[in-house]
């Protein structure tokens, strides 16, 4: 939930009604941008990405990628392999940054009680870390110093008010909490490094400048300092390797500990059970294969899984992209336009990505899902199965699993890029040409929050209409006319609320969706 201030992706509002200590009903409402016509109509389509990347600061990369893909699709332009690999690396750096930031700087505080961490035994915490992954960095001395600081009341995190200290629902053990607080600080350093690596490929701190229609506007010359050279590439690799080590060990461990500690949250917060994820990280200019899998899981009466191998698959075109086009065109102005999957609301995001990968027997997804579930089972001393992923904590577990996969895939993309350049290919961009007449295109991107779609129509080389469909349009969808709740609404029903003045449990479920807009929550007691 980025505090989006004045982002165009304006606020969501959730009303939760509580009866007998649990949520009995919810209503979500909100305004979500779906048209950029007033800003983009009449502009050069090659400039669209510069504007769309301003839609949301947290998702600037995602809106850049989706935009250039939409324009390239409209004019049937394939991009060079180097551009694909570099874009894939940028996508991976952004996803890692986003998953780490979302969990450690936003969601972790819903589960980890700093007052408990302050009472931890640093030696025990260091031992716990060592027994799991060697615990490099989590030394006893460091944890001791951190615990001492927690005891002094110095600022220790983004939530200054300690609003949920001693909340009856805070049950993490002191030692694992101390480790999680230490990892929160490590996470900041990884965020800084990942942002720096993005600037190495993106040309600018803060905003991506090199991803343009036709490819990547970055000169490639392995021996030239001003260009993308080996030195810069090794710096990117170094950051990726560190981030991989962090997400595959600390991140996966921290979410598994939470799963073991709060087993009821591996069942609570399930919500609707249909899912969509599109494939991403294309491996060839024709986009016939992808490094990250896509798929649809529909539970429309019966449970069925449909892999999406490419974006021209019949199933995808008939049931997903056409529905996205419909939702984009809905004349509802800026109201959240709720897309439906085979007539049903559906979830998007890391859980959808992981379930699609499991259903499609995607090896890296199977490996990491199995590792995370086994670790959680060992910590909990009870079997935790894949069903548990469909829950509030399961969405965080999926986030860690996805981050672990993305880190691995990113290093593979790095190798592909370096090998391709070493073969003598330094082309990174093709010049786009805009024919007269009308062209329409879609750009899909499986971002950290789920599928993002941009749709553009171009008339005589100028933007005519421009639409976006955000991941949160799926997850935060309001009730359908037929009465089915949207995913976030449905996931909240049945959540316990121990203290209506401090509705921590509602925050837990809302944060697990990582909504791409600031979200206001209002709790009302019913029939009390």
């Amino acid at each position, binding site marked *: 939930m980025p*505090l989006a201030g004045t982002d165009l992706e304006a606020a969501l509002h959730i009303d939760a009604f509580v009866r007998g200590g649990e949520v009995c009903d919810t209503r979500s409402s909100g305004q979500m941008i779906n048209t950029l016509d007033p800003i983009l109509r009449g502009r050069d389509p090659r400039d669209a990405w510069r504007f769309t990347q301003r839609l949301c600061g947290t998702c600037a990369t995602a809106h850049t990628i989706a935009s250039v893909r939409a324009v390239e699709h409209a004019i049937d332009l394939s991009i060079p392999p180097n551009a694909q690999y570099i874009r894939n690396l940028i996508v991976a750096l952004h996803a890692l940054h986003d998953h780490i930031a979302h969990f450690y700087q936003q969601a972790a505080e819903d589960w980890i009680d700093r007052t408990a961490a302050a009472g931890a035994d640093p030696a025990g915490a260091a031992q716990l870390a060592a027994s799991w992954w060697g615990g490099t960095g989590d030394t006893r001395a460091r944890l001791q110093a951190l615990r001492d600081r927690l005891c002094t009341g110095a600022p220790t995190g983004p939530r200054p008010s300690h609003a949920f200290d001693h909340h009856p629902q805070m049950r993490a053990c002191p030692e694992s909490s101390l480790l999680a607080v230490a990892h929160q600080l490590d996470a900041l350093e990884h965020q800084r490094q990942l942002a720096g690596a993005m600037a190495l490929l993106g040309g600018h701190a803060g905003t991506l400048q090199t991803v343009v229609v036709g490819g990547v506007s970055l000169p490639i010359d392995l021996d030239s300092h001003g260009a993308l050279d080996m030195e810069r590439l090794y710096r990117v690799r170094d950051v990726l390797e560190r981030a991989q080590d962090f997400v595959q060990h600390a991140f996966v461990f921290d979410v598994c500990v939470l799963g073991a500690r709060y087993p009821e949250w591996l069942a609570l917060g399930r919500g609707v059970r249909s899912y969509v994820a599109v494939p991403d990280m294309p491996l060839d200019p024709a986009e016939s294969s992808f490094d990250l899998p896509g798929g649809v899981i529909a539970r429309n009466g019966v449970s069925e899984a449909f892999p999406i191998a490419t974006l021209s698959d019949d199933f995808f075109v008939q049931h997903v992209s056409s529905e996205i086009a419909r939702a984009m065109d809905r004349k509802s102005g800026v109201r959240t336009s709720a897309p439906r999957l085979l007539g049903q609301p559906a979830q998007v995001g890391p859980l959808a990505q992981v379930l699609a990968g499991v259903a499609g027997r995607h090896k890296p997804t199977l490996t990491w899902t199995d590792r995370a579930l086994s670790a959680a089972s060992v910590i909990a001393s009870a079997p935790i199965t894949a069903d548990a992923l469909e829950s509030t904590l399961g969405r965080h577990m999926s986030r860690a699993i996805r981050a672990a996969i993305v880190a691995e895939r990113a290093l593979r993309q790095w190798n592909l890029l370096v090998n391709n350049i070493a073969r003598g290919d330094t082309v990174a961009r093709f010049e786009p040409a805009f024919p007269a007449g009308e062209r329409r295109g879609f750009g899909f991107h499986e971002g950290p929050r789920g599928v993002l779609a941009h749709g553009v129509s171009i008339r005589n080389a100028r933007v005519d209409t421009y639409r976006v469909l955000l991941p949160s349009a799926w997850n935060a969808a309001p009730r359908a006319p037929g009465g089915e709740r949207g995913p976030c609404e449905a996931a909240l029903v049945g959540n316990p609320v121990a203290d209506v003045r401090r509705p921590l449990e509602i925050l837990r479920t809302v944060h697990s969706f990582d909504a791409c807009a600031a979200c206001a929550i209002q709790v009302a007691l019913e029939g009390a």
Partner: protein
Amino acid sequence: MDIRILGLGNVLMSDDGFGPYVVRVLEAFYELPPGVQAIDAGTPGIDLTPFLLDAHAVIIIDTVKAEGMSGDIRTYDRDDILGHPSQQRGARHDAGLRDALLTVSAAGAGPSHVKLIGVIPEWIATGVTLSRDVRAAVAPAIGLIVTELERLGVRPKMRPVPRRPDTWWEQETVTVPPPKPSAFVRGKS
């Protein structure tokens, strides 16, 4: 000493683009000394922390909600920002700024010196131009940035010939910068 000047705000939301606008004009008129970096940071939300983590001093340009006329400038120090209970609104993006400052200080890092220069907006709605009142506040805001830099012991040099500010969002059309010489071979179109 690392000094960072951050323009915060959304250039697609008219007056909310004040921060980025000021940064672009500043860069056009001044040469910043080594160690001073001006960044159009947009609306980073929780992603503000990487910008703060390794800075000794930060000057933030933003819009603020405060009593006064549109175009009026208000300034705030670190303690003002941290002392703000979240219900009262200071800077429009202040919840993010305050959380980010607390987060980096938890890591034992971040700026010890913070100055927020905020303007009261006239309108915030979809659009790419500043209102007249807020545009008139750009030059005074730059004056405040320069004063603040001098207080921090650095002196930005005015360019003998100012550049054209790169406020691309207001312009009719934007072009992709041409690649550097010998950058790449042009492929098929």
